[in-house]
């Protein structure tokens, strides 16, 4: 390449650029019209009077933001979403690692276990939620008779609804996090374990001083994934609880959906809520990535 004379090179570069743009143009069109344009529109909507059916009725900034933060469920839904996020993240990361350690070696039984833990991740979240909706049902589920006899319901109380949903999510995602942990475990060189064994370290010491610290990049990835996913929880609650009982399981995305399409029918306020969530997520992600980078350097 270095032997090419400058004029030929620039001609080639120009042709290269043209062809590159040609091949990238479908991507650019999608990104422009289906991603950037709606992103701009949501900003405009959040600052406009925008009823669901009547459409845009002009600017009204900052009314939507004021209305959004004064919604009677605004703080409750944020609090619930955060609680749900902390619970699912701790459980999924812990269980993911636990399952990965249980099935690490390659025996036939462990291969079977890996597949068994992974199969639920093949289901769609909506399908899995519908499956558990029947499973938790006091009329049709396998626990229906028990529920009648002992007089309890899975989804009838705020605490029950939360933990029942958490169980569904753990069932659906634990195998996925196990897989990520397995990849992390594989990236730890055998020599390190070998050295620890020669030094006479116990299994627990090896786990605490080698496995956990060397898994830090995996923990960073899985925590970011889990936190982001849980903060945006919707389908599982929409299908299992509809935010109930008594709005006790109202997540922030469910609130956006309700404001936009159920009852209130106000796209402007829903857009304002969306912008708040969007900004919060960007801040949380940047914060998390920075925190992990700092611990990585130490």
């Amino acid at each position, binding site marked *: 390449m270095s032997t090419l004379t400058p004029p030929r090179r620039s001609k080639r*570069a120009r042709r290269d*650029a043209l*062809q*590159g743009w040609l*091949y*990238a143009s479908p*991507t650019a069109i*999608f*990104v422009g019209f*289906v*991603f*950037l*344009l*709606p992103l701009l*529109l949501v900003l405009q*909507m959040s600052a406009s009077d925008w009823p669901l059916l009547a459409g845009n009725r002009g600017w009204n900034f900052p009314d939507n933001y004021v209305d959004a933060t004064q919604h009677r469920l605004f703080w409750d839904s944020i609090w619930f979403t955060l609680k749900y996020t902390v619970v699912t993240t701790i459980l999924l990361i812990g269980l993911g690692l636990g*399952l990965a350690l*249980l099935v*690490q*070696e*390659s025996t036939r039984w462990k*291969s*079977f276990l890996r597949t*068994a833990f*992974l*199969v*639920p991740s*093949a*289901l*769609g*979240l*909506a*399908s899995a939620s*519908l*499956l558990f909706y*029947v*499973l938790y*049902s006091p*009329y*049709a589920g396998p626990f*229906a008779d028990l529920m009648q006899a002992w007089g309890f319901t899975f989804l009838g109380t705020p605490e029950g609804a939360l933990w029942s949903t958490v169980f569904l999510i753990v*069932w659906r995602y*634990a*195998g996925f996090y196990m*897989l990520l942990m*397995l*990849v992390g475990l*594989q990236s730890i060189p055998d020599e390190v374990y070998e050295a620890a064994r020669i030094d006479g370290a116990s299994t627990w010491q090896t786990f605490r001083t080698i496995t956990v610290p060397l898994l830090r990049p995996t923990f960073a*990835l899985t925590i970011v994934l889990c936190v982001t996913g849980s903060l945006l929880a*919707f389908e599982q609650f*929409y*299908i299992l609880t509809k935010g109930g009982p008594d709005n006790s399981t109202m997540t922030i*995305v469910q609130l*956006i959906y309700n404001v936009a399409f159920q009852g209130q029918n106000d*796209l402007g306020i829903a*857009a304002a809520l*969306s912008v708040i*969530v*969007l900004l919060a*997520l960007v801040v949380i992600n940047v914060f998390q990535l920075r925190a992990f980078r700092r611990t990585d350097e130490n």
Partner: protein
Amino acid sequence: MTAQTVPTATDVLRVAEPRRRAGRRSPAARIVFGVPYWVLTTALAIIFLYPLIWTAVSSVGPRPGTSQVDGWGFGNYVALANYQAGIWVYLGNSAFVALLTVLLTLVVSTFGGYAFARFSFPGKNLLFLTVLAILMVPYATLLIPLYVILNMVGLSNSLVGVAIVLTMFQLPFSMFMMRISFESIPRELDEAAMVDGATTFGALRRVLIPAVKPGLITVGMFAFLAAWNDFMAPLILITDTNRMTLPLAVANLRVQVQGVIDYGATEAGVVVLALPCILLFLILQRHYVRGFMSGAFKG
């Protein structure tokens, strides 16, 4: 992501290193450690498989929650088949959205991945970063303005609109996957074809596409699963009962007249929804795992 090589499923699922020295334990110790291990793992396997097996079995069982109490058979499936517009309409809608999403995703990410891997053009990095930025933006946040935009361009309440939206959400994963797939093929391969007089498109079609087939399978499979299972986009974008996709139709089964919920038909619906996914997972397990590995950041 990182430049480290992508572990294949064979690495992860089959040849995981035996790290514990089983042979070093005495027979007594092996029983002491072994029995709780077997009890624990058997219990876990049951917990993970039981919901699936129970649903599959009871979907051909008696119909709970309805006045019509028949025994074992396909009553639940008959009820599902006759629900509103009929299951064939919903299956057709779901298949249409899924296949169109797969097609669009494959075309866009093949061309895009080729452009990002082989050409340098102004704005290349900015465009790639913008694609990745889709990951940072919550799904729900974009669906509300997309609802308005699709209304404006006459794609409201349309399955094509849903497929376009779903394709956009597939782009970060599929573009990343296709870019690294093309980059892992030596440049000499397509340059040789071009020396022989092929155009860039000819080299892509005849030489590169066959070479990146594993990447295409992974991208196609993930696009199919995402589109087949998606709930939120059709929930927001589709209002017409005849244009609902299957997950939406099954979820709507619960909103029955007089508050009676057809649990049996819901079970049958879950089976119909889950079956293609589980089969695809078992057949393409290798690609499935590799897709997770390379696209793990996608979630």
